[in-house]
């Protein structure tokens, strides 16, 4: 079975700016694939190249194994949900959704049936005759999704479609998008700058920065094994980054650390500048800790209670500030500012990554 989408050395410039710099990746059939990166990283350009709305300067784009680099948009059979949704304001809900089927000259009876099914899938039954401006933001979102799904595209592209919604609806829509994707069994490529969205929905994520793809992998893999410090800090709530070097296998030394800490490190990263990345939720805090690879004396510098967890900043070593998330399970995890504590973690909790 050929891959749903394949990009081979795709490059796209806008004048001096290089939006896509030699991009190659494949998206498997029925996969939920996310392009994740900060604004201006080129992710939308990549999406527009796949849709044929942007022509790459060089490189090849394949859909289901077929080279479509020179095929115009309307013959590619891709769906695209736009950031501003781009609904047709002069048509009602039914005509919006039916547009793609009418273009394909599907018989009227079948159009009615398929639009109805699609509205049912997203829970908008009975709203066929409504005008677009009579719908709420979440409903418009669903109409846009229906409109691009109903012609059965080979791949559905989504360009930050949840951007305009408020946070609560946004979180609900992420779960729902994932459900819909599973139900219709289609390939989705989702562009977002919101790492939570990407982690929740995706089978695999491609992290982009400066027009390049920096890492491709499953959510957990990218979260726990980021390939560089940019990805480490971009993915997740927060991360502790400590600069230093591994002079011998298994030991990391840093200027701000009073003694070496135990780590796992690849041979090729020995004796080069590296960073140690440590997630705040992997660190334990107590008055006295035992049975951990690394235990450091520390002092609480700031404490924020966030309901589900405490967010502490502790000072250790030589002016080293470490962020720690501790689940709130009672008074044992509650500390005050200036309390003397110990922090600790095992070597599997850390990743050594090259600088830059």
């Amino acid at each position, binding site marked *: 079975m050929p891959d749903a989408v394949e990009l081979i050395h795709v490059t796209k410039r806008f004048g001096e700016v290089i939006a896509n710099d030699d991009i190659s990746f494949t998206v498997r059939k029925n996969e939920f694939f996310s392009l994740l990166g900060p604004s201006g990283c080129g992710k939308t350009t990549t999406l527009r190249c796949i*849709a*044929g*709305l942007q022509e790459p300067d060089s490189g090849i784009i394949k859909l289901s194994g077929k080279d479509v680099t020179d095929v*115009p*948009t*309307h*013959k*590619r*059979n*891709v*769906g*695209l949900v*736009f*950031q*501003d949704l*781009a*609904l*047709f*304001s*002069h048509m009602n809900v039914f005509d919006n959704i039916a*547009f*793609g089927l009418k*273009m*394909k000259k599907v018989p009227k009876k079948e159009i009615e049936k398929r639009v109805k099914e699609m509205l049912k899938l997203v829970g908008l039954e009975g709203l066929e005759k409504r*005008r677009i*401006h009579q719908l709420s933001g979440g409903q418009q979102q669903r109409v846009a999704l229906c*409109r*691009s799904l109903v*012609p059965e595209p080979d791949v559905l592209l989504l360009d930050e479609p949840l951007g305009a919604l408020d946070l609560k609806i946004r979180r609900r829509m992420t779960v729902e998008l994932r459900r819909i994707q599973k139900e219709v069994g289609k390939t989705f490529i989702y562009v977002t700058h919101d790492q939570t969205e990407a982690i929740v929905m995706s089978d695999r994520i491609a992290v982009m920065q400066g027009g390049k793809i920096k890492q491709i992998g499953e959510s957990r893999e990218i979260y726990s094994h980021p390939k560089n410090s940019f990805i480490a800090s971009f993915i997740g709530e927060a991360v502790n980054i400590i600069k230093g070097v591994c002079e011998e296998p298994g030991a990391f030394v840093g200027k701000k650390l009073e003694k070496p800490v135990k780590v796992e490190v690849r041979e090729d990263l020995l004796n080069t500048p590296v960073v140690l990345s440590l997630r705040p939720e992997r660190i334990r805090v107590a008055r006295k800790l035992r049975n951990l690879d690394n235990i450091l004396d520390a002092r609480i510098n700031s404490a924020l209670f966030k309901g589900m967890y405490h967010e502490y900043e502790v000072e250790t070593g030589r002016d080293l500030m470490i962020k720690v998330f501790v689940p709130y399970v009672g008074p044992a995890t509650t500390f005050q500012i200036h309390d003397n504590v110990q922090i600790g973690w095992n070597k599997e909790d850390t990743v050594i990554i090259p600088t830059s």
Partner: protein
Amino acid sequence: MKIFDRILKSFTFFILILMYLPIVIMIFFSFNSTKSLVRFTGFSFRWYSELFQDKIVWGALYNSITVAVAVTVISVVLALLMANAMVRYEYKGGSLIDAFIYIPIVIPEITESLALLIFLGVIGFPKGFWSVVLGHATFGATFAVVVLRARIAGFRKSVEEAARTLGADEIQTFFRITLPILMPGIIAAALLVFTLSFDDFIKTSFTRGVGFQTLPLVIYSSAKRGGVSPGLNALSTFSFGVSLLFSAVRLFTLRRARYE
């Protein structure tokens, strides 16, 4: 501040009366059964039926309408292209060109008309129907740009792109998406231009050829010749009615478009 409020209200009322009373009187006496403009002697359509038996009036009405239609078509097509270019593309000296397009609104029509008259003479353009159309189109296109520009500025390109991803080619996209979305703006612009052309007097009197009459010119020349008469009242009322109708339709379409 109740007193102040009341003064303001009466003042507004007074201005409105000042503006509309003469028109109301004119319309009122156009239905008078006798020639008197002082005493209303009875209701009749006499002056209207006389009016529509007048060959000169018919000819002028025909000219007014054909000129206005031609001006509307030319202005709206030109304005569509101009407004598109102004909104969608950035080009060098863009703001200067913008300014030049709007200038015809502020320069005195009589100056513009005189300049056009001289210009037509220099290039040897024959005076008649087309010279009048040309004259009207210079302000028609300008006003149409003003109306259309707002509509096109609110137009999102992603809507066209969405149609393309749904399988529509360029031509289908234009006729099913772009044109329908711009339609309220096009209609509003067309009605405005039609009204302006239909009412125009100065441009027409400068650019028309000998014997080419439009309705405003007939009204003017008969007023000059025989003074004010009920027949003239009827003609003016008719002309006023046409303009009013078009303005009303324009306001209505604009209001509806606002909901989309």
